[in-house]
């Protein structure tokens, strides 16, 4: 999967990062991390706190630019794109969910989910109709008029997922989407996310420190000190104490 020049589409990763480096001040968050995501694949990125998971997600989603290395999305170099094209990609091709859903507190669940569609030019009635369908799909039926402060954590996260998927993105980036939820709400959110992603052939890059959440994914990569650990380490590599 290293060279996509003449290969059919199915063998080209949808998203590929090579040798990413990124420092925050004097702290090196990423030190040569490489990762690939296939179309429709659900990939869990795990690792201890401070291993660079969130920074990796930010680089892959085009939210921050890496200091070195490359990020390619469907053959396009994200790290070299002008900001205008990057923000268009983020709006149309990517969906993002964080630990705390970052719903707009003044808006109802329905308006929160309809917002990305309206920003893209969909009329208000059409946007509301589609937002309603997505809320139903995520089991938040009957809660359309609630504001984020009136919902449970699980309902708010499922609303955030509906908002991330309503525009039909090809990739959803989820950063600890269940980090603030109990185990039953986690199960509901992860089941909703993975079932929907598989049904709609949406790829998911899932950041988590929780192995039970990572087990919903098709595959796992481990980050350690800003690099991706080999899936089976056959050499003696002493973990840092």
């Amino acid at each position, binding site marked *: 999967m290293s060279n996509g020049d003449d290969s059919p589409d199915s063998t080209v990763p949808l998203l590929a990062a090579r040798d990413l480096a990124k420092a925050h001040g004097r702290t090196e968050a990423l030190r040569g991390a490489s990762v690939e995501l296939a179309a429709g694949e659900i990939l869990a990125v795990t690792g*201890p706190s401070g291993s660079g998971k969130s920074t990796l997600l930010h680089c892959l989603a085009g939210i921050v630019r890496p200091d070195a290395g490359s990020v390619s999305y469907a053959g396009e170099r994200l790290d070299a794109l002008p900001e205008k094209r990057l923000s268009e990609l983020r709006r149309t091709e990517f969906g993002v969910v964080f630990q705390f859903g970052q719903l707009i507190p003044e808006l109802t669940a329905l308006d929160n989910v309809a917002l990305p569609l309206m920003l893209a030019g969909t009329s208000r009635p059409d946007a509301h109709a589609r937002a309603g369908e997505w809320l139903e799909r995520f089991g938040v039926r009957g809660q359309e008029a609630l504001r984020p402060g009136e919902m449970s954590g699980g309902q708010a996260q499922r609303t955030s997922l509906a908002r991330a998927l309503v525009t039909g993105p090809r990739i959803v980036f989820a950063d600890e989407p269940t980090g603030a939820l109990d185990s039953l709400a986690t*199960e509901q959110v*992860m*089941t909703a996310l*993975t*079932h929907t992603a598989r049904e709609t052939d949406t790829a998911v890059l899932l950041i988590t420190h*929780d*192995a*039970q959440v*990572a*087990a*919903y*994914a*098709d595959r*796992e990569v481990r980050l350690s000190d800003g690099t991706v*650990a*080999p*899936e*089976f*380490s*056959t*050499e*003696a*590599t*002493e*973990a*840092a*104490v």
Partner: protein
Amino acid sequence: MIGMSTRHILLGLLASGPSHGYDLKRRHDERFPQARPLAYGQVYTTLQRLVRDGLALVEGTDSDGGPERTTYRSTEDGSRELARWAGEIAPPAPFVTNEIFAKVVVSILSGGDPAAYLAAQRAAHMERMRELTAVKTAKGADLATVLSADYALNHLDADLRWMTTTAARLTTLTAEVDAA
């Protein structure tokens, strides 16, 4: 499931009414979906021991045109023994039996590669956790399936957390094992 008592499970299944061995085996496998299926031989030997100990008795035999089947029922002693067992606290980890830890220590003693072993074991655990997650989130999965998968997932997760900590402390552990 650790230390599971087949005789008490069979007594529990008999509590809802008389039954024969084949039916007990089938109901056991349905009730405990992810458990190791009961072997017929084990069911029949256990039933005979229950009868010997006065906890069950033979209700009768019928053949329904097929092979002859013996129907068993629980006795009053059987019900008392079942109630005693069901209310008894399971001893929380009286001995620590941890094959993974044993392999790490043996690997250190024999100059092997405990870090590589832990990484490979982690990958195997994750693979099994993905299987169990798929089983429990499959559409139409019943609650017994979800609960037994959850039990295994939580235990595998506990192993993983222990392995992560151990991997991070291998240098110290190696020094300690080598010095002893």
